[in-house]
């Protein structure tokens, strides 16, 4: 291995002998022993999840795609006015999503033999020549089935006469004629990124060739059409014959995927902290929806990988599948301990005893409990769905997104939230037509046990309505203004009288119904809106760790390097370097620590941090020598050793891009990075 370290590229061969005597496949031990089972479980869980997400994604822009396809199919007849047919695909600020629209469009277009689909990116071509060259090669090459045909074509070109330059659109024209292509779809995915002049020229040239090459342009627009139009000169705009296509906004896509991922029948629930972090990152940073699905995948991966108790999630688990140490792990869970305490408080000492001492009873008990606890999680999710439906039906402002409500429910804060209070207050005073609408939407969502009560309410309203002939919606007594001031003129005397409006008997009856509905809902909410963390064995089915997600997707490499160099003990865990750093235990003192025991690069880094924008290497050397010798006088050998370390540290700093050579002053280097910036 070591002899290949200077080779540029090579195929790896294991260091051990061919038979692999050096290393054996190590079988996992301990809690990790159940990993294989967990892995299959994970794959099961994730594949169902993934399927749901993909279903959502495939339907999301289906109508836009269909429109685009129809547009393309209808075009050949329409393109006679010497104008360039152009589809303007407006995708809002989320530039990341349109990639998927175009990707799916390309696969759809590929099924037509008479169309060529050419995606062009701003990065690939900076000038007209390069653009055309790129366009022509991708147009003539991407037809892989026709590989031999292209050879023919080349020779054909040779026969006909002078060889054309490779950016001459005549090439494309001939290719189009030869292969009977009646549409060349050119897609500018990132139209904003294109150079304005280039875009204008390209459009004009396309306009000139439209009678020979059946061009259709598609622009992906992240800003607005006005912006595009303003950028283009009038001559170019005149060539275009545009039609607008809207795509689903990224926020909406995100919500839909969230719905798919966090639904009634999930096996594993993510906590509000994790959801919020993921959603926030998705909203604040450009990134396609696939980044979100990746995050979901990684969250499930880490849960199943790191938590051996996820084994209990598998269907049809039998006692003998569970290694003994897993039971010990269950007994160490925080939720187990609180649960046991609760059991003891309610005087079930016998049960507790068996749970603590018998693995079989623990297994049976926890499997049973898991089913019921997961059921409670489901009703929690469902309850949040009800709240969201009610809110959206009542059009309560500010509109709260589905994901926000679900996150509130998962955090256990929804029950006492103002959001819910406002909802309940609004329900109390809603008229009968609204209530009926609400009931119609809520009834299918409530669990069977309560469905009876809800249908009773529906029936009552029906009977009330039958009795009433006016047909006007009933009003709740709370909805009418409770007090009214009446001014009466009686014989030159003004009488002010306060009175409650007369309550119609039907309204009074209706108010009772509304109240019943309100109470029913309130009862349901208090019952189901629980804090998931209070559930027994929530560690198994509830995952709310932000840190792996954050570290893996949003790394801070610079901070890591700075930390390693300014506080080496954090990584090395040695007592010699840590002493000064830890005794201060304040971050402020970090940069004051300079100990001879530090690794040489760390010493250098400290000196580097303290010095100004220009560093004199001679001074740096004397400082380094002084620090690393620890104040003792060094003999020649020691100094040479220090010099070697100094040189190495200096080279490492440069390698990491912390310093660069400068010509401002002799023997000086320039500082590049400032710590903490």
């Amino acid at each position: 291995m070591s002899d290949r370290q200077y080779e540029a590229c090579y195929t790896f061969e294991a260091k051990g002998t061919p038979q692999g005597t050096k290393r054996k496949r190590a079988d996992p031990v301990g809690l990790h022993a159940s990993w294989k089972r967990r892995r299959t479980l994970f794959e099961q869980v994730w594949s169902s999840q993934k399927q749901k997400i993909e279903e959502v994604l495939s339907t999301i822009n289906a109508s836009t795609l269909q429109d685009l396809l129809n547009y393309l199919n209808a075009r050949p007849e329409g393109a006679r006015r010497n104008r360039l047919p152009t589809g303007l695909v407006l995708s809002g600020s989320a530039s990341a999503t349109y990639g998927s629209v175009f990707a799916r469009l390309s696969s759809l277009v590929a099924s037509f033999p008479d169309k060529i689909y050419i995606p062009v990116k701003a990065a690939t071509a900076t000038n007209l020549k390069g653009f055309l060259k790129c366009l022509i090669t991708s147009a003539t090459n991407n037809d892989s089935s026709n590989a031999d045909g292209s050879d023919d074509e080349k020779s054909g070109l040779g026969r006909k006469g002078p060889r054309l330059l490779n950016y001459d659109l005549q090439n494309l024209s001939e290719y189009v004629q030869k292969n009977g292509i009646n549409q060349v779809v050119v897609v500018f995915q990132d139209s904003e990124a294109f150079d304005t002049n280039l875009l204008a020229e390209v459009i004009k040239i396309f306009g000139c060739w439209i009678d020979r090459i059946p061009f259709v342009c598609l622009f992906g627009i992240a800003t607005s059409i006005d912006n595009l139009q303003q950028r283009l000169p009038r001559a170019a705009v005149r060539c275009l014959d545009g039609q607008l296509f809207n795509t689903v906004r990224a926020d909406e896509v995100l919500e839909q995927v969230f719905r798919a991922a966090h639904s009634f029948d999930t096996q594993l629930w993510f906590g509000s902290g994790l959801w919020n972090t993921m959603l926030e990152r998705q909203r604040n940073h450009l990134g396609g929806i696939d980044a979100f699905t990746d995050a979901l995948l990684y969250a499930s991966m880490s849960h199943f990988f790191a938590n051996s108790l996820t084994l209990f999630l598998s269907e049809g688990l039998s006692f003998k599948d569970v290694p003994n140490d897993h039971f010990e792990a269950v007994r160490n869970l925080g939720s187990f301990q609180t649960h046991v305490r609760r059991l003891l408080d309610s005087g079930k000492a016998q049960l507790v005893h068996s749970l603590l001492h018998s693995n079989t009873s623990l297994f049976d008990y926890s499997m049973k409990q898991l089913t019921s606890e997961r059921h409670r999680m489901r009703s929690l999710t469902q309850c949040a769905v009800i709240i969201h439906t009610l809110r959206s039906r009542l059009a309560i402002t500010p509109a709260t997104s589905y994901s926000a409500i679900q996150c509130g429910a998962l955090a256990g804060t929804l029950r006492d939230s103002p959001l819910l209070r406002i909802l309940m207050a609004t329900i109390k005073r809603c008229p009968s037509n609204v209530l009926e609408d609400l009931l119609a939407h809520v009834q299918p969502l409530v669990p069977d046990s309560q469905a009876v009560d809800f249908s009773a309410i529906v029936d009552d309203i029906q009977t009330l309505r039958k009795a009433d002939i006016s047909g006007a919606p009933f009003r709740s007594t709370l909805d009418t203004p409770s007090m009214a001031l009446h001014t009466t003129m009686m014989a030159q005397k003004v009488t002010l009288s306060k009175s409650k409006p007369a309550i119609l008997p039907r309204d009074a009856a209706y108010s009772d119904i509304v109240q019943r509905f309100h109470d029913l809902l309130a009862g349901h909410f208090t019952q189901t809106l629980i804090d998931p963390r209070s559930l027994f064995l929530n560690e198994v089915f509830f995952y709310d760790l932000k840190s792996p997600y954050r570290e893996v997707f949003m790394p801070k490499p610079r901070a890591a390097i700075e930390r390693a160099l300014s506080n080496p003990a954090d990584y090395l865990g040695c007592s010699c370097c840590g002493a000064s750093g830890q005794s201060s235990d304040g971050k402020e003192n970090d940069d004051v620590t300079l100990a001879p025991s530090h690794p040489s690069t760390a010493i250098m880094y400290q000196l580097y941090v303290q010095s100004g924008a220009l560093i004199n290497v001679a001074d740096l050397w004397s400082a380094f020598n002084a620090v690393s010798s620890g104040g003792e006088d060094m003999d020649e050998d020691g100094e040479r050793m220090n010099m070697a370390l100094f040189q190495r540290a200096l080279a490492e700093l440069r390698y990491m891009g912390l310093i660069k050579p400068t010509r401002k002053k002799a023997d000086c280097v320039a500082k590049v990075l400032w710590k903490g910036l």
Partner: protein
Amino acid sequence: MPKRRAEEAAIDEDPTPRKIRRATRDDDEPASSPQVSAAVTPSGRKSILRGTPSKLNGTASVEPTPKSLRKVLFTTPAKPAVEETPTAVRNDRSARRKSQRILQSHDESDDEDAEADEEIAQQILDEDASEDDDEEAAVPITDTPTKSGKLRGRPKGRRRERTPSPPPDLPPHELYFFQNRAGGNKTSANTLPSHLLLGHDDYFAQINAYKDPHAADIKQLKHLHYRSFDQWIFELEEGFNICLYGYGSKRELVMEFAEHMYAQAECEKPSIVVVNGYTPGLTIRDILVAVSKVMTGLKLPAQPGAMLDMLMSKLEDTAPTPPLTLIIHSLDHANLRKGNTQAMLARLVTHSSISLIATCDTPNFPLLWDVSITRQLGFLYHDATTFQPYRVEIDVVEEVNALLGRSRRRLGGKDGVAYVLKSLPENARDLFRILVEEQLALADSSEPSTTLGDATADSEDDDDLLGASDDEAALAGQDTPSRRVRGRGRPAKRKATPSRPIARPSASAMEGVEYRALYLKAVEAFVCTSELAFRTLLKEFHDHAMVESRRDAAGTERLGVPMGREELEALVGELMKK
């Protein structure tokens, strides 16, 4: 001075009140001086000096208290007496002074920076005052002339008090501005004696003898990372790619991981391609070729783009059954940093049957990739700080030399060049001599107005080069006698002399000789007859890195020998002798 007065006379409709004022002041000054002597602190003295009538007038009319003019400890009772002078009215008209005053009164309570501002403001304010002071100095009746000197020296003295070390606990951005402030960088002119820097042999001898006191800790850290190997395998299998960052060489760690992966593979051993990103001259082509080697029966086109296309289509057709793992050490190395290279790599690893493990060493490597490339790479980032030295990745001695602009990757200085020239034909030697002579002549002529062309030129410091060449000559064991004949002192001794930095600027002026001019000269000297022959001769020089070619601002090609002036002179001497 007279000029100034004339100016003032022109501005002032009536110059006489000034004189009156001065007279009154002269009366006042002695009255105040006992107080000054009572307050021994120099600041007290200064405060009085600050309160020169003209300035005081300026402030007093707006703000009667002397507050705005910072800590005036002792106010002379004489001030009110001077207040009503006409100059005060005149000064008061200045909008600039008004605004300055307002600014000042705001800033007053602030810290050092504000004080610096105040100083500037003060200096502006003092302009008028100093006029008076100068006059005072000129007028013999006023007290000691040292006074005015002190007045003007005061801000300077204060500035000198400011320490070059930053005040503690500056937030990072403040520290940045503090360290980058104009004129704030007082780096010493010390130079590092060349003999201190170790050569390759010494360096390796020392480093190999070095026993890291942290060896055990580093090993433990490595074992910590080993524990996540299974996790990494899982992540790779789920279609993610892995990027390791953090301080320290991650090469060994990744190779250990490769071993582990190999050992853990169940049936078919995975094919792993290793790319050492730090290898000099590595290109994307090498990587693609290495990948294609794993897949048999591929005849690759020459262009990297076409190569990648072919690879991708091949991968589509027949995906390798155990997915191919690509290990790239130092993905962010300068070799691979080009946008196109990264984009191609990203495209390659998007394929589901290729997984990538890359290591990155620089702190800001994520900036290499834009959104789409980041998405294509699909990295999971792991902190893999190892604290292991970058043993393979860096050529320490070369790196340090390049950093300090000492010797470069070329033949050992003057002696090396002489050695090469010995083996070249006569006319090549002549051409080289002409080139060097021309270059020297050019340097002589353009010495005063020298501008350094581009940053590639590394011939600025003669002594460094010379010193390095001496070292190398000693290493090579071919000390030419001619140098001693020329009677130059032993460089090692001379190097230590403090005169070095002074000699530097003149030598840093090596501009190249114009290609055309050199050609004509060569033809004149019958060195060559055609441009082709000329080119052939030059090529030999280029191959030995004896000549550097660059284009100047006007686009003309210029040729130069990358050496210091004294070395060039010595070279000419040698060449002439032959």
